[in-house]
């Protein structure tokens, strides 16, 4: 009897363990934006995947802008170039930093200017971790990192 119970029990435990192993744990830190100068803005953050499965950021949305896109900027032989991305990979047990001169969320068609000291909500959609709600703190227009860090 004990043995009969234990087998599915073990199977169950194993299944739970496997399920746990397949979930990603996404943590967003230092989510900040630059005060806007025009109708476009940029949001930066640190994305930490403490789980052991790969995940990816696939969509962003905020009520303060018409559109939010993932972008990457690079220094192409002295010329800064920017291109939109469909997704940003966040590998298992790794951290991806969205920083000025690198990857960022670009806000297009801001409904009102992003003012220094104010904050606004944003939702991030991950392929596996689902939707996360974050609050973005607005820093100076020329800020190069999160002053609150």
């Amino acid at each position, binding site marked *: 009897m004990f043995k009969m119970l234990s087998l599915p029990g073990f199977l169950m435990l194993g299944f739970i363990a496997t399920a746990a192993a397949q979930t990603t744990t996404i943590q967003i830190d230092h989510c900040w934006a*630059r005060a806007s*100068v*025009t*109708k*476009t*803005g*940029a949001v930066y953050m640190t994305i930490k995947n403490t789980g052991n499965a790969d995940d*990816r950021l696939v969509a962003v949305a905020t009520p303060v802008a018409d559109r939010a*896109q*993932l*972008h*990457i*900027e*690079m*220094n*192409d*032989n*002295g*010329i*800064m*170039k*920017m*291109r*939109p*991305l*469909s*997704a*940003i*990979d966040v*590998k298992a047990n*790794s951290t*991806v930093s969205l920083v*000025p*001169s*690198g*990857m*960022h969320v*670009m*806000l*297009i068609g801001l409904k009102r200017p992003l003012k220094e000291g104010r904050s606004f909500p944003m939702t991030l959609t991950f392929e596996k971790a689902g939707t996360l709600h974050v609050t973005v703190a607005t820093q100076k*227009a*020329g800020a*190069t990192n999160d002053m609150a860090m």
Partner: protein
Amino acid sequence: MPAWAHAVLLEHEPAANATLAAAPSEVRLRFDEVVTPVLVRVLDASGKPVTGPGAVSAIDTTLHIALPKTLPPGSYIVTYRVISADSHPVGGSFVFAIGSAAADASLASRLTGGGNSALWGIVMTALRASFYLAFLIAAGGGLFLGLVDRDGAAQDDRHLIRIAAIIAAGLIACSLGVEGTAAADLPVSGLLDASAWQIGITSTLGTSALITFLGLAILMFGAAARVRHARALMIGGAVIGAIGFAATGHVATALPHGVSTPVLVLHVLCAAFWIGALPPLARRLWQLPPAASASLVGRFSHYAVAAVILLILAGLVMAAIQLRTPSALLETDYGRRLTAKLVLVFGLLLLAAANKLWLTPRLARHDMSAAITLRRSIFLELTLVIGIVIATAAMGETPPPRALAEAMPMDHDMTMGEADQAPTGFSVATMAANRTAIIAVTPAQAGPNHLAITLINSDGTVMVSREVSAWLSNPALGIEAAQYKATPTAPGKYALAAPLPVAGTWTVEIDALVSDFEKAIFVTEIPIR
């Protein structure tokens, strides 16, 4: 081409690399601000323009390019050059196709141009420096006669003001043509082309030139002999001319306008007063007896101290707006040019201080040798001034850190040759050991696909690899990895054609051979519809 400047192409129709069933009636380019079209054309696959200059119309922030009614099927290139509000040209191109053929993305890379930009940069710097100098002498001379030497009998000084004003007006007129020719990327012969001049005139430089012309004309009228209110006219002309400076350039586009515009005008006027006063002052020291020159120099010093303090304060405010951080003084091109200017200004200040504290009192004691030393010092000051003016003009040719910081979230890849527009494919950034790979797959649909790979180092520069290959597999469907070699298309950029015959999630592994001993491996997944 560098995309530092403010105007950014936000969206365009048709999308890059789109294939349309039928020819559209027009191409639309929407920017984030109102732009002046310079050269906006649609070319066919052989590079022949299919639209004329009359096809382009600007409505608000959007440029409309009317297309001919009968465009045969094939690939087309849209190429644009516009001038943004800070008078810098911005350009780019993209490809679309009509009919069943896929857009030939390689067309855009065949476009050539921009080869003359370094030459034009030097020409513009030289023109701007000469214009600044002529303007400072004209406006400063006017301010000197208007404020300091009120006897105003000096026929020679008025003559110098008129000549300097004519030269300044001529130089700014020339710069309109050069600006237009450089912006349109025409050869030197473009200077003879009326359209190049029209481009320059319709840019913000044209507005600036118009205001400055008006100021110079008033100044010249005031400097003419036997005019009533001559002093007021000369001062007013100098002020209006200085306002023209605020209508274009890096300071004009810096926010807040309420601060940057008056500060710039004040800076120009104080510089003009200081520098423009030097030639008449030198002449007086030559002509007048020591007692008279002492009283004149005393009166000049009185104003000059205030002017120099205001000049430096205004300069510091503008530097703070443009640089944002003190470290930018050494780290950026703009900052280094400003540093050179500051060193020269410091030398000039030392000379001015020596004149005031040491030579002026000697002059007051009717020391003849002091007048000679002072005259020498003024010539040395003029040399330093020329250096300062050249450094200032050179600053106009490179974007200030402020513009770089603002441009960051707005700049787009202006050379959209590759399939990087979201609607036509899938692109993902994936990291491995602090390096980033951007993998763009077009059209990301079952069938033949184009993979564009961009490799970036941790410092944001492109990562050049000896050999790059892609392993494509679909584990869910049991499709084993197949290797494809990528060919380099530009430093750090690689491309390959890959068949992805079925829809589903494909695993892409990019192997980049960094050196004989190091290989960077990036793994990601691409959804194929």
